[in-house]
């Protein structure tokens, strides 16, 4: 696909967002992934989410590790800084960047190899620290760049392209995020943009660690019969737990929903997440309830999707640290250096 130069034109009929920017302004360079890759659909949804949220492109920081997923930040929001670091270590880079400048919108794009094997520790600890980031795990169950080895989340019995079944137990990132205390846990499917979009927007506006697992089939190495991460399998077994809408702070509250059929959760900035048709025995703000619900559906062989858990508390690692409101990177030397008088006084304590 890379031999085609991306045309710099935009349809005159397309509208602009609150900043007067067009969807085109949120695009990146052209994708070098395989045609039909699920990741490209995620990229398209990410572009639309940023556009619709009217986030200034340069106030976005795009973080990634290594792998097919890690390349995708180059394919959206050209006018944002991106950091394609080392394999499995994006959470540490994101933690540091966020420590330095907490006012940016952080999006981390990872894969199942990046997050669940080489970077499992970093993934877990970023959750523990509650870094304010939308962490998207583009989950295809295989290592694409090295030609189709199973990843740590491949299901038992799932077959590789050559027909070899996986025998190792999978690491389930959603269950993991729920148990480790992620303050936002969701799963989407790259083949369902309508569902994915509000999840991305809610995740971006969530303060704290927002985890979004996206089943994103690998058309080259994991989209065959016998795979549990294929388009077909996901479509057949997908179970959207609760349809969700994201209502930005500036929007009018629509009255088009029936009373009692939804749960609305106000987020830290005043925007809202609406859960439609919440089952009676499930409370998306209760971690245990979310976990039980998720596990029971999963045991029935269903690929559970949707916003599974949300802690609207709106605190992140900087609240724990009581960090000064001005981002640390923007403080001046005068703000930071104690000066000679303090030094002289201090020296007397070392005598």
């Amino acid at each position, binding site marked *: 696909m890379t031999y085609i130069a991306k045309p710099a034109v935009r349809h005159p009929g397309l509208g602009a967002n609150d900043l007067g920017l067009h969807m085109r302004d949120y695009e990146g360079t052209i994708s070098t992934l395989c045609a039909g890759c699920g990741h490209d659909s995620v990229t398209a949804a990410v572009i639309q989410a940023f556009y619709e949220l009217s986030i200034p492109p340069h106030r976005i920081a795009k973080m990634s590790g290594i792998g097919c997923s890690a390349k995708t930040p180059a394919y959206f929001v050209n006018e944002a800084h991106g950091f*394609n670091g080392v394999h499995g270590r994006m959470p540490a880079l994101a933690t540091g960047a966020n420590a330095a400048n907490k006012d940016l919108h952080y999006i981390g794009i990872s894969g199942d190899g990046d997050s669940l094997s080489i970077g499992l520790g970093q993934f877990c600890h970023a959750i523990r620290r509650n870094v304010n980031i939308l962490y998207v795990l583009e989950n295809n169950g295989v290592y694409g760049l090295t030609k189709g080895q199973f990843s740590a989340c491949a299901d038992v019995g799932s077959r590789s392209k050559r027909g070899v079944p996986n025998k190792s137990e999978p690491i389930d990132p959603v269950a993991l995020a729920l148990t480790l205390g992620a303050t936002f846990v969701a799963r989407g499917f790259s083949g369902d943009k309508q569902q994915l979009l509000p999840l991305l927007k809610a995740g971006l506006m969530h303060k704290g660690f927002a985890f979004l697992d996206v089943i994103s089939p690998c058309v080259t190495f994991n989209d065959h019969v016998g795979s549990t991460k294929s388009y077909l399998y996901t479509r057949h077994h997908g179970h959207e737990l609760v349809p969700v809408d994201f209502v930005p702070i500036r929007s009018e509250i629509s009255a088009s929903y029936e009373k009692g059929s939804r749960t609305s959760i106000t987020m830290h900035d005043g925007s809202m997440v609406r859960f439609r048709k919440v089952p009676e025995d499930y409370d998306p703000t209760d971690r245990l309830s979310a976990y039980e619900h998720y596990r029971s559906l999963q045991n029935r062989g269903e690929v559970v999707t949707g916003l599974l858990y949300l802690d609207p508390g709106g605190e992140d690692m900087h609240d724990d640290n009581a960090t000064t409101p001005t981002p*640390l990177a923007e403080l001046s030397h005068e703000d930071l250096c104690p000066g000679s008088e303090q030094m002289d006084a201090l020296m007397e304590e070392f005598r």
Partner: protein
Amino acid sequence: MSDPRLEKTDRTNDFAFKIGTVNGTGSASANGLIMQAIFRMGIPCTGKNVFPSNFQGLPTWYEIRVSHEGYSARTPEFDLIVAMNPATYERDIAEVRPGGYLLHDSSWPMAKEFLRDDITFLGVPLGEMCVREFKGARVRILMKNIAYAGALAALLSMDLDVIRGMIQEKFAAKPKLIGSNYKAIELGYDYAMEHFDCPLPIRLQTMDATSDHVLMDGNTSAALGCVFAGATVGAWYPITPSTSLMDAFKRFCERFRKDPETGERSFFIAQAEDELAAAGVVIGAGWAGARAFTPTSGPGVSLMSEFIGLAYYAEIPAVFVDVQRVGPSTGMPTRTQQGDIAAVAYASHGDTKHIALFPANPEESFQMAVEAFDLAERFQSPVFLVQDLDIGMNDWMIPKLRWDDSFVPDRGKVLGAAELEKIQKFYRYMDVDGDGIPYRSLPGVHPKGAYFTRGSGHTSRGTYTEDADEYTEVMDRLSRKIDSAASEVPAPAVRMREGATMSLVTIGSCDEAVREATDILERQGLPVNYMRVRGFPFDTLVREFLDAHELNIVVEQNRDAQLRRLLVNETEVDPARLHSVLDYGGFPMSAAFVAGEVNEHLGRAPEETKVRPAAERPEGAVA
């Protein structure tokens, strides 16, 4: 090897003693009290804590050297040993120099086989007295330590008022403890005065040589350097012997960087899950514009190496403080070594080279910590502050640290919003100024500053490449950039002597021992020049100095002569000019060792190394 100091007859303010105790018995505070009292008497002194990798039960020693001449290298010859740990009696007694003293607890009889007739045994019934005077097992153990400090006060002629003053300061918040501590001091003091001929020939006499000085360890001073340089993000994984650096940073930040009214803090410390993450946090923070650092030790540097390569190639400032300990592998975590010199110079795979600063004492740790942040941002690259356990964890007597309020940090070539607005297009890795250093932009500042940071092959425009020429262009510029730091890192410390034809070359904490050795050799009729390397890449002065001497004896603390190898590798000096003297058993080096090794290498007969009375003592160090 014999220590020339011992040939002198007047030992006032010129001796060394050692206290052997059991780890976890509270002896550290008694030892600190003794050391500080000597310091407050105005007498130059230095303390080395020899401790096990354990919390309770294993033997530990505290060595104090008193030197009116200001020498502070460790000396392995002890005039007096306080043996409070029966488990190490045999070893402690054996280590007293002939004619020296052994102070022990005589509450229980000393085994006959340990007795020596060439040293004096000073028995004080410390245990018995403390059992009689104090209640509770813990208190008795603690007071026994204070009591031996009291006995030492009498034997060495310490100023009791100074000691009382310190006890008062120390327990200002718990005045109830002052009385018992006074009492313990007096128990030991009175007993010694009554039973021994006090003071001993090794004794203290008030001087005025410490009033402009402080007692400080290099982890504390490096932490202060980080605070004063404006570091806001610190990430770490606890590891001996660097842990106290982050503890100190946190303490100073809580004091200087916390708004007393709102409680808001202008710093962020991440205790990471491992050293890999610590390095990542620092690099992420540097990328986003904060001054960030991580303290670690050799095993941590090994783990951080992948990230170090990323910071080198993607050109992100980051400061790594390596407090070296004995390697390889886990090695000996509580012993000192200079085993990471080669590792930090070229850390990470592929072609890399890193700026490194080598302080020799806590004063330089402070100064170089500040400098490290400037160099990291100026050269947009990892910078290593390489110290060791001896500097980092031992109390050194150093001049009071000063801060110049006119200091302006060098934040390097960072484009602000106004500058980005003006330029047509920003290329991250373009050598615009021809100095090998490109311009940098920070996230969030301006849309024109955006670029995609990557550790994969990239062009000078910041785009991905697999093209040979485009890749090579960036790599060659990086090489020029780091090499150009040679003239910006601290210049070597050099001291020339009249008539010298050979030199001693060293690095880091070997400084004290090697400088003292040059004095010893001078007195023995062998003037030698001296150079201490302080920065990497090497300044041209380093090569010039080496070339000026037929024989350069390179003194360092590792097995493989890492400094020598680096000198050969980087300066292309004739290797035949460099002879190694190595000491890597984990203890700070002694001057007697260095002088002995030099004499041996030169094949000087013992009669040649007799002290020449006419030789004048040269003045202090040139740094």
